[in-house]
């Protein structure tokens, strides 16, 4: 397995380079550039723009700019933001904990809810419980996250006053863990809702398929308790699609929590990425995209390795 994992990691490198070249080139073709906003400002004269272009090296040919960026990346210098003039890594580092916390909480909520509900829903197919779950999951996966976020804020924040209206922590309470958890509840629900809805349905469907297979009947015939049959035998095999889903959903939360971050004023990587895209802050964009790509490749690798754990029939040579 180690050899396989290593091989996959090594294969990831040319893939990353290819992705970075693609993204870098695409960014150049978009009209505008880091100085676009200044160009529309009447007080800024063409001489000023020309001077800035030289200073930022924007007049060099694209391969040269790419080469400069790549060599910087490899030596740990991820460049400076054109907008804030701060090191890109510093900007990402500030927001990373917030994103990780939200990603983590969301994933935990997902696992804690999806697995038992999905299992039970499949085992108790067509009962009242299953019907209620079916309705709720369809509602959950259909609700747009921005609408849900606003709804949560208005009902639970404004009208009931149970939760704060956005933000990570109350001013002056930065060390208070309870306060932070208090702020975490609503955004986590808003972010995880669609995943909960869809993953529960996946698990339910997968379980229903598995439960009808021969070996499950055999296990029951052997006299094993229903619980053991479901948990130890059926679920392990039914969980494969779930692993796939999780593997792809988790890196998606890295930049994909943008809408939740916007509604809840949560300073995460999603918003950083969005703001950089709007202002064509190339260095920040490239950095976030590279990290996202790396995360995705890593997540896929982990998913493949987990498959091996879950299903002994799968071996890679």
């Amino acid at each position, binding site marked *: 397995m180690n050899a396989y994992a290593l091989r996959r990691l090594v294969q990831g490198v040319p893939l990353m380079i290819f992705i970075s070249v693609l993204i870098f080139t695409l960014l150049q073709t978009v*009209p505008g550039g880091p100085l676009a906003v200044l160009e529309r400002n009447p007080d800024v004269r063409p001489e*000023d723009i020309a001077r800035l272009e030289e200073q930022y090296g924007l007049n060099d040919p694209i391969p040269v700019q790419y080469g400069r960026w790549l060599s910087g990346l490899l030596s740990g210098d991820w460049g400076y933001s054109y907008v804030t003039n701060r090191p890109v890594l510093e900007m990402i580092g500030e927001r990373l904990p917030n994103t990780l916390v939200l990603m983590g909480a969301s994933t935990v909520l997902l696992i804690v809810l999806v697995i038992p509900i999905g299992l039970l829903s499949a085992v108790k197919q067509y009962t009242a419980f299953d019907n209620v779950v079916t309705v709720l999951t369809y509602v959950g996966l259909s609700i747009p996250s921005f609408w849900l976020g606003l709804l949560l804020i208005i009902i639970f924040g404004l009208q009931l006053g149970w939760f704060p209206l956005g933000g990570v922590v109350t001013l002056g309470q930065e060390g208070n863990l309870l306060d932070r958890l208090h702020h975490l509840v609503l955004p986590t629900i808003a972010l995880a809702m669609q995943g909960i809805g869809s993953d529960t349905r996946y698990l339910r469907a997968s379980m229903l398929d598995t439960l009808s297979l021969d070996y499950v009947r055999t296990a029951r015939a052997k006299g094993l308790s229903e619980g053991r049959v479901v948990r130890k035998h059926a679920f392990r095999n039914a969980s494969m699609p779930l692993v796939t889903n999780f593997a792809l959903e988790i890196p998606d939360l890295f930049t994909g929590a943008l809408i939740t971050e916007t509604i809840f004023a949560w*300073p995460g990587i999603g918003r950083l990425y969005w703001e950089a895209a709007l202002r064509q802050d190339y260095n920040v964009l490239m950095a976030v995209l590279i990290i996202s790509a790396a995360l995705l490749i890593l997540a896929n690798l982990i998913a493949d390795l987990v498959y091996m754990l879950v299903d002994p029939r799968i071996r890679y040579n």
Partner: protein
Amino acid sequence: MDNLARRMFAACLFIACLSIAALGFAQQRGGTARITIYQEPETLHPLFGSQSVNNVVEEPIIEGLLTVNPEGEYVPVLAAEVPSLENGGLSEDGLTVTYRLKEGVTWSDGEPLTSADVKFTFDAIMDESNPVTSTDGYDKMVSVETPDEHTVVVTYDEYDVEWQSRFSSVLPAHVFEGETANMAFHPFARNPVGTGPFRFVEWVSGSRIVLERNPNYREEGKPYLDGLVFQIVPSPEVAAAQLQAGETDMIWNVRESQIPELLEMPGVVMDFGEERTSTERIQLNLRNPENLSEPHPILSDERVRQALQYATPKQQIIDGLIEGGRAFLACAHVDIGWAADPECEPSEYDLERAAQLLEEAGWEMGPDGIRVKDGQRLELTISSTAEKQRELTEQLLQSLWRQIGVDLRIRNHQSSVLFGTYDEGGVRGTGNFDLLMYAASDGLDPHGHYVERFTCEGAAGPENPGGYNFSGYCNPEVERLIEQAGTEVDLGARANLYVQASRIIQDDVESILLYNRSEVNAYSERLKGVEGHPWANLAWNAEEWYVEG
């Protein structure tokens, strides 16, 4: 004293003390005002960055030599008085300006403000390694001398018409240790030091910027507030909910769509006033979009332009389409401030007159209801960004103008495509439009505005890709007036020239001006002392703010 007398004396003393205490400050000292902004500043360094939110947050921290009051007059801040011909601060030819600094002013860290700081600011602006947004005006300065600690003498090689707006921010030389190079990377951008009523405490990225009272502020007893907190909340709906729940005290630059909701909210004050920050206009292309060196086949005829203006129901657009009543009729490109035309009148709405003018111009009604002249249909395209308000306006004009025989097509674009420069192939930059609807704003001094937009050389095109005259307007009389205004030292004489130019531009109908829209701020009733200002940001008088209740 016996018991009774003693008690009476104590009671009188107590009452006297209470009365004295009650007579004390009408404004309560203390409290923090929270201001919600929807964007995070790029930087707090006054020389860099292009977003307006940067200035909103910098305003209570960093000050300059002069500033503008709400009436449009220049007033001294760090300077003791506004240099003028009378007090000898301004030389006869306008090329030498002598500033006397106020005595006893210190930076928020206690260091004294001296003329060296002003010179340092000039050096920083002119240092080539700094991506300063604009060096306009400073590049006309030959020298900035500091004969003593409280005097600065600026010498120009040619007259800078906007000289009063220079040095609107003064940098503390000691924070930079006298080094002007590569200032954009200096931590000052995230930790500014100024002479303003508030000083910087911390910046939590993506969340908030915290300011506290500047203990070294030059005005005794002010600011009343303990601190200001700028909270970054990107969602306007959540910001409104926060205002309602009391989790914030003020929302900067409220969206138009929220105004009705906020007007209904109890305990909330809306700040509209007469502030006008930008004018929504329909610019008419005087040149042929397909060949900029030729006149526009339809719009180059003044009568057609006048007809279109007569066919635009400006007041109805404001009343019917703009929510919340925060738009005001615009009558000229510069209609507030000292250079405005006091007799300016917005155009009238008269469909019949419009039709008549088109007839006179030789456009005859065709069989399909659209006018024709020399085999060409009166077909025009209007372009703007895809915002609801603009789309509604375009649709209104489309149906109205059809009645007078104009076929108006609507083609909207995404903002960066619409406003793209010539090099980017943008609609506006390349002159590829018939009618262009957008908003633009002016600073207090109109000179730059007039030069950029109404002179022949300002015309944007292949020879001048950075030009701001997108319609290709070129009137030698206006050109002459503007040029002359640029050489006048006397404000009154300049104003007169601008007014004359403005009247000609209006008669020529270079643009159909629709309305002025203001930046609207909403704040809680408990926040007092807030005043509007047409040319400054919302915290311009934060030293006067206090909270009640």
